[in-house]
């Protein structure tokens, strides 16, 4: 009569076991932990753990366990006091080369982890943290790119000994003015062959007696530049986030011009925003020794090869337009005190290209002055430029040198941090922020959990009362459904957010629908005078197409939600869709299996308790 073949029972058992194994990690709590990674993404030396162990012994902190996964070293502790103490001790012992972050490591036993089981990660709304959506200012990025072309063209022309009248930006393109037909031909050739000048569409134009060239940047080239700018910004952001010591940050591109930054568990959001949002960089420039800055400021006559800046006290400074080294050639910076004067200072390390250029410059300019310009990009393309230090070059230097003239050690360390974190390729601004404090996150978890449990229990009781034996079968299915849903979410590495919890709750409410449909059909068949066994079969068979149709239409709505939603809404859509799929399995196949076990084997069933 109503019997399932053995393979169906085996299939159901396998799914149940798999579901249980992957759902289980969620039952284990989390250990307060400290995570150590290299600040620049290098691998961790083998003896690092010994250094850390020693530091912990000195600090008198016991750890629960230690493990090294890929490039991170993880120490678990018994409580958060020990975790905080340890974090301080480790930071002190390792210095700025390593990122020491507080973390909550899941306490899943190794036996379960062997299967790849891991608990769901909690969303920012549940554990607290910062979410930023940042937009790259592409207009400014294009402008900067054009400025770079101008610089490069001027350099190339100078190197070739071509005396140009002018090279400048003109709207969205470039304009070059030359003195002769021959110069123009040579310039065109340079533009054609020079590797750093690819992607330009050049056109000849004549203006009076001058021979002009106008150039626009190819669309393809611009797109590539945008992509590069965005990628470089993401790298920079990643470096900055590392400086903050966040355990599991998310930094992702979203669309063509945006980046999502999520920092779970960050306590000091103001600091985070300052570091992430800062778009400052440094430029090293030579002081124009041949002209007087005050005269230039008063008369407004600035030599063509120089530009007028002002320092932090508002005094004018005349600097050469030619850049020596810019922020992106800088690979390290740390703050400290000048041993001779006791002034706060920043020690800077340059990369190979930067070091070479710096050495070239300082060799020829001992005794001359060099200035550091601090440039901060503001939203909308405005920028403030300020000369933060002017110092005499005492001796030639290249790779390493010091910048002094800072107001306080705080300013020095902030500047060092910004320098280390690198320069953004294009200015960015925060267009969306969602920050949840840790206590609100905790409250959300409690309330979310409570509402799931209460809603779930109410439905269980209601079903058992209403459909008796069949109701209990449906209850089992509902419970299994919850386990399968949680295991699927864990397997997919989904992030559980408050809307996700709402999705789970809603799934619980709607998952019984399939069973209600089936049971009402069975009752109907019984009323029509059919035998219990036939009624069961007819009930399941007839309800199936209805259930399928109804669920597919809901899936369509959930799918649209997924396509158009962002962040939390996507979470809701995912839980809802997965819930529909798992509930189809448990409510149809699962309950049928149990019902068949109860009633299927019997020859005569007098009455169904439904």
């Amino acid at each position, binding site marked *: 009569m109503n019997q399932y073949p053995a393979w169906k029972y085996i299939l159901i058992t396998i799914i149940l076991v798999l579901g249980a194994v992957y759902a289980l990690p969620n039952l284990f709590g989390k250990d307060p932990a400290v995570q150590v990674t290299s600040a620049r993404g290098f691998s961790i030396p083998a003896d690092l753990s010994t250094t850390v162990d020693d530091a912990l012994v000195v600090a008198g902190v016991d750890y629960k366990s230690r493990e090294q996964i890929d490039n991170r070293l993880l120490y678990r502790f018994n409580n958060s006091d020990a975790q905080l103490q340890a974090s301080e001790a480790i930071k002190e012992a390792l210095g700025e080369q390593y990122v020491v972050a507080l973390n909550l490591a899941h306490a899943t036993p190794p036996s379960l982890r062997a299967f790849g089981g891991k608990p769901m990660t909690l969303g920012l709304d549940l554990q607290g943290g910062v979410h930023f959506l940042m937009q790259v200012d592409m207009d400014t990025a294009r402008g900067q790119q054009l400025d770079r072309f101008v610089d490069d063209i001027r350099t190339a022309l100078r190197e070739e000994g071509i005396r140009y009248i002018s090279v400048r930006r003109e709207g969205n393109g470039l304009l070059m003015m030359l003195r002769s037909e021959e110069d123009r031909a040579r310039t065109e050739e340079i533009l054609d062959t020079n590797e750093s000048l690819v992607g330009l569409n050049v056109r000849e134009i004549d203006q009076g007696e001058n021979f002009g060239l106008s150039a626009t940047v190819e669309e393809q080239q611009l797109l590539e530049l945008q992509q590069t700018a965005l990628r470089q910004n993401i790298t920079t952001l990643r470096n900055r986030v590392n400086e903050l010591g966040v355990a599991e940050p998310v930094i992702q591109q979203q669309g063509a011009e945006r980046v999502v930054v999520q920092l779970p568990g960050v306590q000091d959001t103001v600091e985070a925003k300052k570091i992430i949002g800062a778009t400052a960089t440094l430029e090293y420039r030579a002081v124009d020794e041949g002209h007087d800055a005050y005269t230039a400021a008063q008369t407004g006559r600035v030599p063509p090869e120089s530009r007028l800046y002002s320092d932090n006290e508002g005094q004018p400074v005349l600097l050469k337009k030619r850049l020596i080294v810019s922020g992106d050639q800088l690979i390290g910076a740390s703050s400290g005190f000048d041993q001779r004067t006791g002034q706060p200072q920043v020690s800077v390390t340059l990369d190979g290209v930067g070091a070479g250029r710096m050495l070239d410059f300082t060799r020829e300019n001992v005794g001359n002055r060099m200035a550091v310009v601090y440039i901060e990009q503001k939203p909308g393309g405005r920028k403030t430029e300020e000369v933060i230090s002017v110092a005499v070059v005492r001796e030639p230097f290249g790779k390493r040198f010091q910048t002094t003239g800072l107001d306080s050690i705080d300013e020095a360390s902030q500047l060092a941090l910004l320098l280390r974190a690198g320069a953004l390729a294009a200015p960015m601004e925060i267009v969306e922020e969602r920050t949840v404090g840790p206590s609100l996150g905790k409250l959300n978890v409690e*309330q979310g959990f409570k509402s799931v449990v209460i809603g779930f229990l109410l439905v269980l009781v209601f079903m058992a009362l209403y459909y008796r034996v069949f109701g209990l079968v449906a209850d089992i299915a509902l419970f299994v459904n919850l386990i399968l849903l949680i295991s699927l979410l864990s397997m997919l590495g989904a992030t559980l957010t408050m809307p996700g919890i709402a999705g789970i709750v809603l799934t619980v409410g709607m998952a019984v629908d399939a069973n209600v449909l089936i049971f009402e059909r069975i009752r109907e068949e019984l009323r029509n005078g059919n035998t219990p066994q036939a009624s069961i079969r007819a009930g399941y068979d007839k309800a*199936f197409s209805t259930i399928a149709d109804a669920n597919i*239409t*809901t899936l369509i*709505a959930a799918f649209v939600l997924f396509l158009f939603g962002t962040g939390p809404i996507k979470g809701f859509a995912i839980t809802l869709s997965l819930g529909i799929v798992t509930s189809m399995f448990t409510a149809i196949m699962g309950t049928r299996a149990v019902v068949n076990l109860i009633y299927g084997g019997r020859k005569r069933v007098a009455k169904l308790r439904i």
Partner: protein
Amino acid sequence: MQILKGNSNFDFMGRSNIALILSAVLMVVSIGSLVTRGLNFGLDFTGGTLIEVTFPAAADIEQVRTNLQEAGLNDAVVQTFGAASDIVVRIPPRSEEESTAEISTVVLDALQTGVEGEVEMLRVEFVGPQVGEELTEQGILAVIYALIGIFLYVMFRFQWRFSVGAVIALIHDITISMGIISLVQIQFDLTVVAALLAVIGYSLNDTIVLFDRIRENFPRMIKSDPITVVNTSVNQTLSRTVMTSLTTLLVLVALFVFGGEIIHAFAFTLIVGVIIGTYSSIYVASTSLLRLGVSKFDLLQVEKEGENLDSMP
């Protein structure tokens, strides 16, 4: 236990004029409210800044206002919520230039001024003007695409009259749900959009179950007129409709009562939507179907085309 006797035989379609009037009144009130009162758009759509904090003791609202004004935030709106120590500050969106994430930092500093102990930040939300516009656009598009997808699926599985009936019912549900949200001025944010889409899914669920029964009954009740067929189908699915609505409402009420503030608007919208969705699948969808002139011939044809694998005995 049974709430409804299985062989209920209410004359639903006989009262369809009353339902039509009720629906018409609800629609007029809803649209009226949407036009005159409008929706209480949340930060997600308007842009702006919202900061929630807890003071160590009851907050001095006047002092907070003065502090904010001194910080140059004359347009800040300060309110308490829940306890007297909990404060929410809202700052309306500004021009693209001035609207930056920095504002929340200024506010937090201003709130801390003159307060002993630490003012704890609970939540900060900032949405820039450009993002708000996009979200509005996306929300509207999402609803439209969902309706189109559903229309096509129902047409494929049933017939165009059913599609039209289902979509009319859905538009009815969304309009009235939004009307009620507008009447009680619940804050309309992204979670409410998600709830409205879930209402579409839910209400459709009910409608499809009913349509399925109608499709099944037409060939069986070959001698009955369409009104009787629809009426019988509604009666046959009634106890299921009521049961599922009840269980769904049970969990939604649990979510509304225990789920906390951030899920309130979401749960409220769904509760309203489930009630209206249940009503509309009984009355609006089936009445539309009848008024569109559905008959047994429509479906016989579909049966031949689709030859459903499962629904016919």
